[in-house]
Protein backbone atom coordinates (compact mmCIF):
# COMPACT_ATOMS: atom_id res chain seq x y z
CA UNK A 1 0.00 0.00 0.00
CA UNK A 2 1.31 3.41 -0.95
CA UNK A 3 -0.92 6.05 0.61
CA UNK A 4 -0.60 9.68 -0.49
CA UNK A 5 0.61 12.15 2.10
CA UNK A 6 -1.60 15.11 3.00
CA UNK A 7 -0.19 17.39 0.32
CA UNK A 8 -0.60 14.60 -2.22
CA UNK A 9 -4.26 14.20 -1.27
CA UNK A 10 -4.94 17.94 -1.47
CA UNK A 11 -3.13 18.22 -4.83
CA UNK A 12 -5.07 15.26 -6.25
CA UNK A 13 -8.41 16.83 -5.33
CA UNK A 14 -7.33 20.23 -6.68
CA UNK A 15 -6.87 18.64 -10.13
CA UNK A 16 -10.64 18.12 -10.30
CA UNK A 17 -11.64 21.71 -9.51
CA UNK A 18 -12.62 23.34 -12.80
CA UNK A 19 -11.57 26.81 -13.91
CA UNK A 20 -13.86 29.50 -12.53
CA UNK A 21 -15.32 27.39 -9.72
CA UNK A 22 -16.37 28.77 -6.32
CA UNK A 23 -15.26 26.22 -3.74
CA UNK A 24 -15.71 26.13 0.01
CA UNK A 25 -12.84 24.50 1.88
CA UNK A 26 -13.66 23.01 5.27
CA UNK A 27 -11.60 22.87 8.41
CA UNK A 28 -8.43 20.75 8.53
CA UNK A 29 -7.03 19.01 5.47
CA UNK A 30 -9.55 20.57 3.02
CA UNK A 31 -8.11 24.04 3.76
CA UNK A 32 -4.84 22.80 2.26
CA UNK A 33 -6.43 22.40 -1.19
CA UNK A 34 -6.06 26.18 -1.65
CA UNK A 35 -2.30 25.66 -2.11
CA UNK A 36 -2.74 23.59 -5.26
CA UNK A 37 -4.51 25.36 -8.11
CA UNK A 38 -3.45 23.74 -11.39
CA UNK A 39 -1.73 26.13 -13.81
CA UNK A 40 -4.02 28.10 -16.10
CA UNK A 41 -7.05 27.94 -13.83
CA UNK A 42 -8.60 30.62 -11.64
CA UNK A 43 -10.53 29.27 -8.67
CA UNK A 44 -12.21 31.30 -5.92
CA UNK A 45 -11.85 29.51 -2.60
CA UNK A 46 -14.42 30.38 0.06
CA UNK A 47 -13.87 30.14 3.78
CA UNK A 48 -16.93 30.21 6.05
CA UNK A 49 -15.49 32.93 8.26
CA UNK A 50 -16.05 35.58 5.61
CA UNK A 51 -13.63 35.51 2.69
CA UNK A 52 -14.10 34.57 -0.95
CA UNK A 53 -10.72 34.40 -2.70
CA UNK A 54 -8.42 32.60 -0.25
CA UNK A 55 -4.81 32.66 -1.38
CA UNK A 56 -1.70 30.76 -0.28
CA UNK A 57 0.02 30.85 3.11
CA UNK A 58 1.55 34.31 3.72
CA UNK A 59 5.23 35.04 3.73
CA UNK A 60 6.27 36.43 7.12
CA UNK A 61 6.04 40.06 6.00
CA UNK A 62 2.52 39.47 4.63
CA UNK A 63 1.11 37.98 7.83
CA UNK A 64 -2.09 39.56 9.15
CA UNK A 65 -3.34 38.01 12.42
CA UNK A 66 -6.91 38.89 11.49
CA UNK A 67 -6.83 37.22 8.05
CA UNK A 68 -7.48 33.53 8.70
CA UNK A 69 -9.28 30.53 7.26
CA UNK A 70 -11.79 28.14 8.86
CA UNK A 71 -8.90 26.20 10.44
CA UNK A 72 -7.78 29.47 12.09
CA UNK A 73 -4.58 29.45 9.99
CA UNK A 74 -3.14 32.62 8.46
CA UNK A 75 -3.94 33.11 4.76
CA UNK A 76 -3.68 35.69 2.00
CA UNK A 77 -6.17 37.01 -0.54
CA UNK A 78 -6.08 36.56 -4.32
CA UNK A 79 -6.98 39.40 -6.75
CA UNK A 80 -10.78 39.71 -6.92
CA UNK A 81 -11.27 38.62 -3.30
CA UNK A 82 -14.06 40.00 -1.12
CA UNK A 83 -14.70 40.14 2.64
CA UNK A 84 -18.11 39.85 4.33
CA UNK A 85 -19.88 38.85 7.52
CA UNK A 86 -21.25 35.47 8.61
CA UNK A 87 -24.80 36.03 7.39
CA UNK A 88 -23.65 36.68 3.82
CA UNK A 89 -21.05 33.90 4.00
CA UNK A 90 -23.70 31.33 4.91
CA UNK A 91 -26.18 32.77 2.39
CA UNK A 92 -23.58 31.79 -0.22
CA UNK A 93 -23.56 28.23 1.11
CA UNK A 94 -27.22 27.61 1.87
CA UNK A 95 -28.43 29.63 -1.13
CA UNK A 96 -26.80 27.38 -3.71
CA UNK A 97 -24.21 29.87 -4.90
CA UNK A 98 -21.07 27.77 -4.42
CA UNK A 99 -20.11 25.05 -6.91
CA UNK A 100 -18.29 22.58 -4.63
CA UNK A 101 -17.60 22.08 -0.94
CA UNK A 102 -14.64 20.02 0.29
CA UNK A 103 -15.16 18.57 3.76
CA UNK A 104 -13.30 16.30 6.15
CA UNK A 105 -15.13 13.16 7.28
CA UNK A 106 -15.22 10.67 10.16
CA UNK A 107 -17.20 8.26 7.99
CA UNK A 108 -18.65 8.13 4.49
CA UNK A 109 -21.10 5.53 3.16
CA UNK A 110 -21.97 4.10 -0.24
CA UNK A 111 -25.46 5.67 -0.06
CA UNK A 112 -23.84 9.11 0.02
CA UNK A 113 -24.22 9.64 3.76
CA UNK A 114 -21.61 11.80 5.48
CA UNK A 115 -20.71 11.79 9.20
CA UNK A 116 -18.22 14.44 10.25
CA UNK A 117 -19.50 16.19 13.37
CA UNK A 118 -20.16 13.83 16.27
CA UNK A 119 -18.97 10.46 17.50
CA UNK A 120 -20.72 8.19 19.96
CA UNK A 121 -18.28 8.84 22.81
CA UNK A 122 -19.78 9.97 26.09
CA UNK A 123 -18.62 13.34 27.37
CA UNK A 124 -17.12 14.22 24.01
CA UNK A 125 -18.81 17.50 23.15
CA UNK A 126 -20.01 17.62 19.54
CA UNK A 127 -18.92 20.46 17.23
CA UNK A 128 -20.86 20.93 14.01
CA UNK A 129 -19.48 24.22 12.61
CA UNK A 130 -20.65 24.94 9.07
CA UNK A 131 -20.82 21.38 7.75
CA UNK A 132 -24.60 21.00 7.86
CA UNK A 133 -25.09 24.34 6.11
CA UNK A 134 -22.76 23.23 3.33
CA UNK A 135 -24.41 19.88 2.68
CA UNK A 136 -27.81 21.64 2.65
CA UNK A 137 -26.89 24.15 -0.03
CA UNK A 138 -23.86 23.16 -2.12
CA UNK A 139 -24.59 20.90 -5.10
CA UNK A 140 -21.26 19.02 -5.11
CA UNK A 141 -19.89 17.70 -1.82
CA UNK A 142 -16.41 16.14 -1.87
CA UNK A 143 -15.08 14.34 1.22
CA UNK A 144 -11.30 14.53 1.69
CA UNK A 145 -10.09 12.03 4.29
CA UNK A 146 -7.74 9.20 5.19
CA UNK A 147 -9.11 5.93 3.87
CA UNK A 148 -8.96 4.32 7.32
CA UNK A 149 -8.42 5.72 10.79
CA UNK A 150 -5.01 5.53 12.47
CA UNK A 151 -6.02 2.38 14.37
CA UNK A 152 -7.12 0.75 11.09
CA UNK A 153 -10.88 1.13 11.60
CA UNK A 154 -12.68 1.48 8.27
CA UNK A 155 -14.14 4.88 7.35
CA UNK A 156 -15.43 4.10 3.83
CA UNK A 157 -18.52 2.13 4.85
CA UNK A 158 -21.72 0.46 3.75
CA UNK A 159 -23.57 2.57 6.31
CA UNK A 160 -22.34 5.23 8.71
CA UNK A 161 -22.51 4.40 12.42
CA UNK A 162 -21.95 7.95 13.68
CA UNK A 163 -24.69 10.61 13.61
CA UNK A 164 -25.07 12.00 10.11
CA UNK A 165 -24.12 15.44 8.90
CA UNK A 166 -26.33 14.82 5.89
CA UNK A 167 -28.06 11.86 4.25
CA UNK A 168 -27.20 11.08 0.63
CA UNK A 169 -25.31 14.32 0.16
CA UNK A 170 -21.87 13.12 -1.02
CA UNK A 171 -20.77 13.41 -4.63
CA UNK A 172 -17.20 12.13 -4.34
CA UNK A 173 -14.71 10.76 -1.81
CA UNK A 174 -10.98 11.53 -2.05
CA UNK A 175 -8.76 9.41 0.21
CA UNK A 176 -5.04 8.68 0.45
CA UNK A 177 -5.67 5.50 -1.56
CA UNK A 178 -8.28 6.31 -4.19
CA UNK A 179 -10.97 8.58 -5.61
CA UNK A 180 -14.57 7.31 -5.52
CA UNK A 181 -17.73 8.64 -7.12
CA UNK A 182 -21.02 8.14 -5.29
CA UNK A 183 -23.55 6.59 -7.70
CA UNK A 184 -27.03 5.14 -7.17
CA UNK A 185 -25.32 1.70 -7.19
CA UNK A 186 -22.66 2.69 -4.63
CA UNK A 187 -19.01 3.77 -4.76
CA UNK A 188 -17.52 3.69 -8.23
CA UNK A 189 -13.73 3.88 -8.67
CA UNK A 190 -12.44 6.95 -10.48
CA UNK A 191 -8.79 6.27 -9.86
CA UNK A 192 -6.20 4.82 -7.51
CA UNK A 193 -3.24 6.54 -5.90
CA UNK A 194 -0.15 5.50 -7.80
CA UNK A 195 1.31 2.17 -6.76
CA UNK A 196 -1.90 0.67 -5.35
CA UNK A 197 -4.12 -2.02 -6.81
CA UNK A 198 -7.90 -2.24 -6.59
CA UNK A 199 -7.58 -5.56 -4.78
CA UNK A 200 -5.36 -4.02 -2.09
CA UNK A 201 -7.68 -1.06 -1.61
CA UNK A 202 -10.83 -3.20 -1.60
CA UNK A 203 -9.25 -5.41 1.05
CA UNK A 204 -9.07 -2.48 3.48
CA UNK A 205 -12.49 -1.04 2.58
CA UNK A 206 -15.80 -2.07 4.14
CA UNK A 207 -17.91 -0.82 1.25
CA UNK A 208 -17.86 -2.52 -2.15
CA UNK A 209 -15.91 -0.57 -4.78
CA UNK A 210 -17.50 -0.82 -8.25
CA UNK A 211 -15.52 -0.37 -11.43
Amino acid at each position, binding site marked *: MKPLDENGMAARLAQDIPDGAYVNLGIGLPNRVAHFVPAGREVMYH*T*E*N*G*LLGVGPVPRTEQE*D*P*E*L*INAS*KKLVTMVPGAS*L*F*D*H*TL*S*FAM*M*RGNHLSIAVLGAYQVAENGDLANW*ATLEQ*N*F*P*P*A*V*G*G*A*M*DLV*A*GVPQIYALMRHNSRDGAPKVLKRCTY*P*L*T*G*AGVLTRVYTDLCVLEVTPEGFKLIDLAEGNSLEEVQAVTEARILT
Partner: protein
Amino acid sequence: MIDKRVSDLATAVAPIFDGAVIMVGGFGTSGIPFGLLAALLDHGTRDLTIIANNAGTGEDALALLLRENRVSRVICSYPRSPGSVWFEKRYEEGLIELEVVPQGTLAERIRAAGSGIGGFFTPTAYGTLLAEGKETRVIDGVGYVFEKPLPADFALIRAEQADRWGNLRYHATARNFNPVMAMAAKHTIAEVRILADEPLEPESVITPGIFVNSVVEFGVRP
Protein backbone atom coordinates in the same frame (compact mmCIF):
# COMPACT_ATOMS: atom_id res chain seq x y z
CA MET B 1 -25.60 65.10 21.18
CA ILE B 2 -24.88 61.51 20.28
CA ASP B 3 -21.67 60.30 21.90
CA LYS B 4 -21.24 56.60 22.56
CA ARG B 5 -17.63 56.72 23.69
CA VAL B 6 -16.80 55.41 27.15
CA SER B 7 -13.42 55.90 28.79
CA ASP B 8 -12.43 52.36 29.77
CA LEU B 9 -13.32 48.68 29.54
CA ALA B 10 -14.58 48.42 33.14
CA THR B 11 -17.10 51.22 32.57
CA ALA B 12 -18.20 49.57 29.33
CA VAL B 13 -19.04 46.21 30.99
CA ALA B 14 -20.47 47.71 34.21
CA PRO B 15 -24.13 47.22 33.10
CA ILE B 16 -23.69 43.43 32.77
CA PHE B 17 -25.61 41.51 35.45
CA ASP B 18 -25.64 37.96 36.89
CA GLY B 19 -27.60 35.57 34.68
CA ALA B 20 -27.17 37.72 31.57
CA VAL B 21 -27.26 36.25 28.06
CA ILE B 22 -24.14 37.54 26.29
CA MET B 23 -23.15 37.29 22.63
CA VAL B 24 -19.42 37.30 22.00
CA GLY B 25 -18.17 38.11 18.50
CA GLY B 26 -15.23 36.47 16.79
CA PHE B 27 -14.14 33.30 15.02
CA GLY B 28 -11.01 31.50 16.15
CA THR B 29 -8.80 34.28 17.47
CA SER B 30 -10.01 36.85 14.94
CA GLY B 31 -12.46 39.56 15.99
CA ILE B 32 -12.80 38.42 19.61
CA PRO B 33 -13.26 41.28 22.11
CA PHE B 34 -10.48 40.11 24.42
CA GLY B 35 -10.34 43.40 26.29
CA LEU B 36 -14.05 43.35 27.13
CA LEU B 37 -13.89 39.67 28.13
CA ALA B 38 -10.99 40.37 30.50
CA ALA B 39 -13.00 43.26 31.99
CA LEU B 40 -16.02 40.95 32.34
CA LEU B 41 -13.86 38.49 34.27
CA ASP B 42 -12.84 41.29 36.65
CA HIS B 43 -16.46 42.46 36.84
CA GLY B 44 -17.26 39.16 38.56
CA THR B 45 -20.76 38.37 37.22
CA ARG B 46 -21.88 34.73 37.29
CA ASP B 47 -24.39 32.32 35.77
CA LEU B 48 -23.81 33.73 32.30
CA THR B 49 -25.08 32.29 29.02
CA ILE B 50 -22.50 32.72 26.26
CA ILE B 51 -23.52 32.76 22.59
CA ALA B 52 -20.43 32.50 20.40
CA ASN B 53 -18.98 30.47 17.56
CA ASN B 54 -16.23 28.89 19.68
CA ALA B 55 -15.81 28.30 23.41
CA GLY B 56 -12.36 29.64 24.17
CA THR B 57 -8.83 28.35 23.61
CA GLY B 58 -5.93 27.84 26.01
CA GLU B 59 -6.04 30.46 28.73
CA ASP B 60 -7.68 33.19 26.68
CA ALA B 61 -10.26 35.45 28.31
CA LEU B 62 -13.26 33.35 27.20
CA ALA B 63 -11.58 30.17 28.51
CA LEU B 64 -10.88 31.93 31.82
CA LEU B 65 -14.58 32.74 32.27
CA LEU B 66 -15.20 29.00 31.93
CA ARG B 67 -12.33 28.10 34.27
CA GLU B 68 -13.70 30.47 36.91
CA ASN B 69 -17.17 28.89 36.64
CA ARG B 70 -18.87 32.09 35.53
CA VAL B 71 -20.65 30.40 32.62
CA SER B 72 -23.57 28.03 33.07
CA ARG B 73 -24.66 27.70 29.45
CA VAL B 74 -22.98 27.84 26.06
CA ILE B 75 -24.78 28.19 22.71
CA CYS B 76 -22.29 27.71 19.93
CA SER B 77 -21.42 25.92 16.69
CA TYR B 78 -17.90 24.68 17.38
CA PRO B 79 -17.14 24.44 21.11
CA ARG B 80 -14.49 21.74 20.82
CA SER B 81 -11.39 22.99 19.03
CA PRO B 82 -7.67 22.53 19.59
CA GLY B 83 -6.94 24.02 23.00
CA SER B 84 -10.52 24.31 24.23
CA VAL B 85 -9.35 22.71 27.46
CA TRP B 86 -11.42 24.63 29.99
CA PHE B 87 -14.61 24.25 28.01
CA GLU B 88 -14.06 20.49 27.73
CA LYS B 89 -13.23 20.14 31.43
CA ARG B 90 -16.28 22.05 32.65
CA TYR B 91 -18.48 20.23 30.13
CA GLU B 92 -17.24 16.83 31.30
CA GLU B 93 -17.87 17.87 34.90
CA GLY B 94 -21.47 18.55 33.92
CA LEU B 95 -21.19 22.21 34.91
CA ILE B 96 -22.14 23.57 31.50
CA GLU B 97 -25.31 23.17 29.54
CA LEU B 98 -24.40 23.05 25.83
CA GLU B 99 -26.58 23.84 22.82
CA VAL B 100 -24.81 23.06 19.54
CA VAL B 101 -26.24 25.06 16.62
CA PRO B 102 -25.05 24.78 13.01
CA GLN B 103 -22.95 27.84 12.25
CA GLY B 104 -25.21 29.30 9.56
CA THR B 105 -28.31 28.67 11.65
CA LEU B 106 -26.60 30.41 14.57
CA ALA B 107 -25.89 33.48 12.40
CA GLU B 108 -29.42 33.43 10.93
CA ARG B 109 -31.15 33.05 14.33
CA ILE B 110 -29.15 36.02 15.62
CA ARG B 111 -30.09 38.00 12.51
CA ALA B 112 -33.78 37.12 12.99
CA ALA B 113 -33.63 38.48 16.55
CA GLY B 114 -32.08 41.72 15.32
CA SER B 115 -34.46 42.07 12.39
CA GLY B 116 -37.83 41.45 14.03
CA ILE B 117 -38.34 38.10 12.28
CA GLY B 118 -40.34 35.63 14.40
CA GLY B 119 -38.72 32.49 13.03
CA PHE B 120 -37.71 30.86 9.75
CA PHE B 121 -37.40 27.56 7.96
CA THR B 122 -33.87 26.43 7.09
CA PRO B 123 -32.79 23.31 5.19
CA THR B 124 -29.74 23.03 7.45
CA ALA B 125 -29.76 20.00 9.78
CA TYR B 126 -33.00 18.59 8.34
CA GLY B 127 -33.07 14.85 9.04
CA THR B 128 -30.19 14.97 11.55
CA LEU B 129 -29.88 14.64 15.34
CA LEU B 130 -29.78 18.43 15.63
CA ALA B 131 -33.32 18.65 14.24
CA GLU B 132 -34.80 16.19 16.73
CA GLY B 133 -37.79 17.60 18.55
CA LYS B 134 -38.02 20.57 16.21
CA GLU B 135 -40.88 21.51 13.91
CA THR B 136 -40.18 20.53 10.31
CA ARG B 137 -41.92 21.25 7.02
CA VAL B 138 -41.48 20.13 3.44
CA ILE B 139 -41.78 23.09 1.05
CA ASP B 140 -41.62 22.49 -2.71
CA GLY B 141 -40.05 19.10 -2.07
CA VAL B 142 -37.27 20.28 0.25
CA GLY B 143 -37.23 19.52 3.97
CA TYR B 144 -36.78 22.42 6.39
CA VAL B 145 -36.39 22.88 10.15
CA PHE B 146 -38.13 25.74 11.99
CA GLU B 147 -35.71 27.91 13.92
CA LYS B 148 -36.47 30.71 16.37
CA PRO B 149 -34.75 34.05 16.82
CA LEU B 150 -31.85 34.12 19.28
CA PRO B 151 -31.64 37.45 21.14
CA ALA B 152 -29.31 38.51 23.95
CA ASP B 153 -29.07 41.00 26.77
CA PHE B 154 -25.57 42.08 25.73
CA ALA B 155 -23.29 41.76 22.72
CA LEU B 156 -19.56 42.13 23.20
CA ILE B 157 -17.98 42.80 19.84
CA ARG B 158 -14.65 43.79 18.36
CA ALA B 159 -14.15 46.23 15.47
CA GLU B 160 -11.29 47.99 13.76
CA GLN B 161 -12.56 51.55 13.92
CA ALA B 162 -15.43 53.54 15.41
CA ASP B 163 -16.60 57.15 15.61
CA ARG B 164 -18.55 58.86 18.39
CA TRP B 165 -21.86 57.89 16.74
CA GLY B 166 -20.95 54.20 17.21
CA ASN B 167 -20.49 53.51 13.50
CA LEU B 168 -18.13 50.57 12.99
CA ARG B 169 -15.73 49.19 10.41
CA TYR B 170 -13.96 45.83 10.65
CA HIS B 171 -10.65 44.42 9.45
CA ALA B 172 -10.25 41.35 7.20
CA THR B 173 -11.91 38.18 8.57
CA ALA B 174 -12.36 39.78 12.00
CA ARG B 175 -15.79 40.87 10.75
CA ASN B 176 -17.44 37.39 11.06
CA PHE B 177 -20.26 37.37 13.70
CA ASN B 178 -19.63 40.91 14.97
CA PRO B 179 -22.04 42.89 12.74
CA VAL B 180 -24.97 40.49 13.18
CA MET B 181 -24.51 40.23 16.96
CA ALA B 182 -24.42 44.03 17.19
CA MET B 183 -28.02 44.05 15.88
CA ALA B 184 -29.43 41.41 18.18
CA ALA B 185 -28.65 42.46 21.75
CA LYS B 186 -30.48 44.95 23.95
CA HIS B 187 -27.11 46.52 24.76
CA THR B 188 -24.14 46.29 22.39
CA ILE B 189 -20.63 47.15 23.55
CA ALA B 190 -17.88 47.51 20.94
CA GLU B 191 -14.18 47.30 21.68
CA VAL B 192 -12.31 49.00 18.84
CA ARG B 193 -8.68 49.33 17.85
CA ILE B 194 -9.07 52.95 16.75
CA LEU B 195 -11.63 55.41 18.07
CA ALA B 196 -11.59 58.11 15.41
CA ASP B 197 -12.20 61.79 16.02
CA GLU B 198 -13.78 62.21 12.59
CA PRO B 199 -16.94 60.42 11.45
CA LEU B 200 -16.36 57.30 9.37
CA GLU B 201 -17.03 57.68 5.67
CA PRO B 202 -20.77 56.78 5.29
CA GLU B 203 -20.16 54.27 2.44
CA SER B 204 -17.56 52.41 4.52
CA VAL B 205 -19.72 51.85 7.61
CA ILE B 206 -20.56 48.16 8.13
CA THR B 207 -22.43 48.49 11.44
CA PRO B 208 -24.46 51.73 11.69
CA GLY B 209 -24.24 53.32 15.13
CA ILE B 210 -27.95 52.78 15.79
CA PHE B 211 -27.06 49.20 16.75
CA VAL B 212 -24.29 50.18 19.19
CA ASN B 213 -24.68 51.45 22.75
CA SER B 214 -21.07 52.09 23.69
CA VAL B 215 -17.60 52.06 22.15
CA VAL B 216 -14.29 51.82 23.97
CA GLU B 217 -10.79 51.97 22.55
CA PHE B 218 -8.56 48.93 23.08
CA GLY B 219 -5.70 49.38 20.69
CA VAL B 220 -4.19 45.91 20.77
CA ARG B 221 -4.41 43.67 17.73
CA PRO B 222 -4.12 40.00 18.78
